């Protein structure tokens, strides 16, 4: 089975049973070699530069390179560089990991801007990942402060964009590009923190949050209050009462399960 994103929720149970093999982009020399082979077998005389251009435009996509070769060389079985001038570069999405790698190793603001414009990753995930990884990228505190300043401005624009003001996206990209190029020559490779720490924390605390939500639901049903009110105004007092007397009549009145009582007694910060 092939998947663009093996980490999505619906593939998680299947992923446990599978051996994961990551496919990389096919390298340009390998595509040229394949095109040479096809040309030889199909009796097409092609200039090396023409094949080189097709391979470069394909961005590692063998199928598109073969399609281009077929469309250009099928008619007269000859392919020159001039024939390939009409070809344009294929658009290709990049993953979060690859985008981060290219983002942090960029040598100029222009390079980062161009890279971000072609990327199709989630803006919020990318912003969180950038802010988590900045301390690894800039060990120097002055540069780090400067970079965080740009990231905070980018975050501001992300908030203003919301779901409709997409004309502000260029300012979001611009500030992120500035953050990547505070000190371009100081780049040394490092291991990225992905997914963002906030998402990891939410993942790890999901069980606790579900349990607390169920408790708040029971309190809400008995006391006719919202989950939010139950969480903020009731839970601290119920917890204090249960800590003093675990077998309080409250337990049966709220219909708490023994696990919920145990959770309330032991719970710390929420």
């Amino acid at each position: 089975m092939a998947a663009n994103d093996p980490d999505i929720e619906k593939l998680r149970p299947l992923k446990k049973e599978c051996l994961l093999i990551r496919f990389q982009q096919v390298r340009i020399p390998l595509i040229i070699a394949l095109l040479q082979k096809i040309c030889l077998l199909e009796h097409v005389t092609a200039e090396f530069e023409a094949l080189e251009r097709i391979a470069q435009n394909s961005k590692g996509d063998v199928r598109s390179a073969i399609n281009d070769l077929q469309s250009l060389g099928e008619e007269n079985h000859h392919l020159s560089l001039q024939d390939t001038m009409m070809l344009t570069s294929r658009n290709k999405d990049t993953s979060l990991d690859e985008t981060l790698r290219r983002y942090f190793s960029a040598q100029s603001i222009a390079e980062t801007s161009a890279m971000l414009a072609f990327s199709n990753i989630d803006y919020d995930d990318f912003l969180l990942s950038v802010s988590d990884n900045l301390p690894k990228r800039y060990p120097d505190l002055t540069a780090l402060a400067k970079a965080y300043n740009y990231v905070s401005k980018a975050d501001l624009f992300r908030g203003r964009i919301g779901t409709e003001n997409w004309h502000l996206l260029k300012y979001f990209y611009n500030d992120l590009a500035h953050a990547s190029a505070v000190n371009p020559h100081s780049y040394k490779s490092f291991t990225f923190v992905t997914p963002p720490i906030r998402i990891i924390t939410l993942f790890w605390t999901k069980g606790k949050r579900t349990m607390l939500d169920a408790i708040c639901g029971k309190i809400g049903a008995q006391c006719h209050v919202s989950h939010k009110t139950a969480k903020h105004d009731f839970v601290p007092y119920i917890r204090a009462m249960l800590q003093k007397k675990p077998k309080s009549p409250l337990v049966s009145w709220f219909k708490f399960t023994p696990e919920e009582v145990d959770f309330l007694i032991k719970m710390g910060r929420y």
Partner: protein
Amino acid sequence: MTIVLNGKGFKLPRVEKEKFVNLIHLGLDYDRNAGLFSIKSYNNIEKVIDTISDILKDDVVFLQSCIRCGKDFSCRGCNYLELCTTKNLPFSCVCSQCLKDRKNFETYLTQF
């Protein structure tokens, strides 16, 4: 300075247990008899390189293996280095001599 390694087998200085386990988890294999590490899984290859760079305290690049002549060669001097998304990673490729050598190419094709 950049350290050039061959993915088929390379030596590393003695590392702590935690780092060794991490390397194995990331997809390296260790031959106890020869004392050589080799790459078993390429799924986390970028992380492997970062970890090895961290151990050797220097930048690390891997040699490529030519699918035509079988030689190991470096990415340095490749015309497509700027466009390559897998540069310096230990994968198969075609060396620049084989790519332009028509005679060698026809010999290679006769193998199939």
